[in-house]
C-alpha cells in the first residue's frame, strides 16, 4: 500500500514536474519561487490519499500549484505585470539557422503578448501542458465551453495577425 503510494508520487513527479515549474514560473515570473511552489505542491500530494485524487491527478496538481502561486503573488504583493512565457529561457541554440523562421517565431511571441491573460493561460495549459479542455476547465474554474471559446479566439487572433504579417512581408 505504502509502496504503491510512493511509486504513484514518484511517477507524478517525473511526469508533471517540468510542466508545473514552467506554469508556476509563468504565473510568478520567478523561477526560484516557482520551484518552491512546485515542491510544496508535491509535498501536499504526499499527504493526500491516492484514492481521493483518483484519475484527476493532473487537475489536482495544477490546481494546487496555481492556488499556491497566486497565494505567493498575493503575499508578496506583486503589483508588477506577469512575465510572459516569452520571457522565459528558451532552448533554441540555433539562432541564425533560418532567419525567416526566427522572424515568424518572434512574431508569434509578440502576438501572444497582446492576448488577454486568460487566453494566454489556457493556451499554455493546452499546448504546453497538453491538458484537455475538461482538465483546463477544472483548473481554471471556467466552463468547458468557455475554455474552448478562449482557445479558439486566441488562435483566431494569432492566425489573423500572422496572415497580416506575411502579407506585409510579401508587399515589401
Amino acid at each position, binding site marked *: 500500500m*505504502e*509502496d504503491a*503510494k*510512493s511509486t504513484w*508520487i*514518484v511517477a507524478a*513527479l517525473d511526469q508533471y*514536474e*517540468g510542466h508545473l*515549474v*514552467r506554469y508556476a*514560473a509563468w504565473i510568478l515570473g520567478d*523561477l526560484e519561487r*516557482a*520551484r*518552491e511552489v*512546485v*515542491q510544496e505542491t*508535491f*509535498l501536499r500530494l*504526499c499527504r493526500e490519499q491516492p484514492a481521493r485524487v483518483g484519475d484527476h491527478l493532473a487537475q489536482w496538481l495544477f490546481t494546487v500549484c496555481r492556488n499556491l502561486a497566486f497565494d505567493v503573488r498575493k503575499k508578496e504583493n506583486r503589483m508588477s505585470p506577469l512575465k510572459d*512565457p516569452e520571457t*522565459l*529561457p*528558451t*532552448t*533554441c541554440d540555433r539562432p541564425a539557422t533560418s532567419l525567416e523562421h526566427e522572424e*515568424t*517565431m518572434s512574431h*508569434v*511571441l509578440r502576438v*501572444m503578448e497582446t492576448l488577454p491573460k486568460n487566453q494566454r493561460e489556457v*493556451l*499554455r495549459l*493546452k*499546448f*504546453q501542458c497538453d491538458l*484537455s*479542455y475538461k482538465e483546463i476547465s477544472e483548473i481554471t474554474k471556467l466552463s468547458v*465551453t468557455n475554455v*474552448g*471559446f478562449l*482557445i*479558439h*479566439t486566441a*488562435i*483566431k487572433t*494569432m*492566425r489573423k495577425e*500572422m496572415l497580416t504579417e506575411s502579407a506585409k512581408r510579401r508587399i515589401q
Partner: protein
Amino acid sequence: MNITPDDPKWTAYVLGELNEAERAQVEQELESSALAREVVEEIRLATSMLKREFAKEQMMGLAAAQRGVIRAKAEPTHVRPIFRWAAVAGSVAAGLFVVASLSIPSLLRSRQAAVETTAALVPPVDGTRTTPSESDRDLKKQRTVYNRQKLEAEIQQAQRRQLFRLPPDGTATTTER
C-alpha cells in the same frame, strides 16, 4: 452547407476535443465544404506553430535537493520488527503506569481510612463517650465524628444481633460480650 469559420468547434476538432458524434458531423462538413477545409487547415498551422513555440521553452525542473526532499517524503516508512515490539511494550508500560498512578493513591486513602475507623471503634478506657464536635469545629473532624458514630451504631446493632443469634439446635441463647 452554411459554414461559420468563427465556430469554436473547428478548433476543438483540430485539438481532438469533440466526441464521436460531433467529430462525425464535422468530418461530413469537411467533405462537402472547401471553406471548412481551409479553416481547419489554418487552425492546424496555427496550433502546430504554438506547440513549437512552447516546446522551445527550456524544460525547467526542480533542484536536485528539492526533488530529494519529495522522494524522501514519498518513501514508505518501514519499521523494523524490534522497534515495533519496543513500541508495543512501551505502550503497555505507559498504560500500566497510568492505571497505577490513578489507583494506588485511592487504595492508600481507603486503607488509611480503615485504620482510622478501627482506632475510632476502640472504646475509651474510662468508658465515657467523647463528643469531638464540641472540641473540634473543623468540618473534616465533624465528618469523622459523624462517620464514627454511624459505625458505632452499626456495631452496636451487630452486637445486639449477635446476642440473640440462634445456635444450630434452634434454641435461643445469650452470648457473652
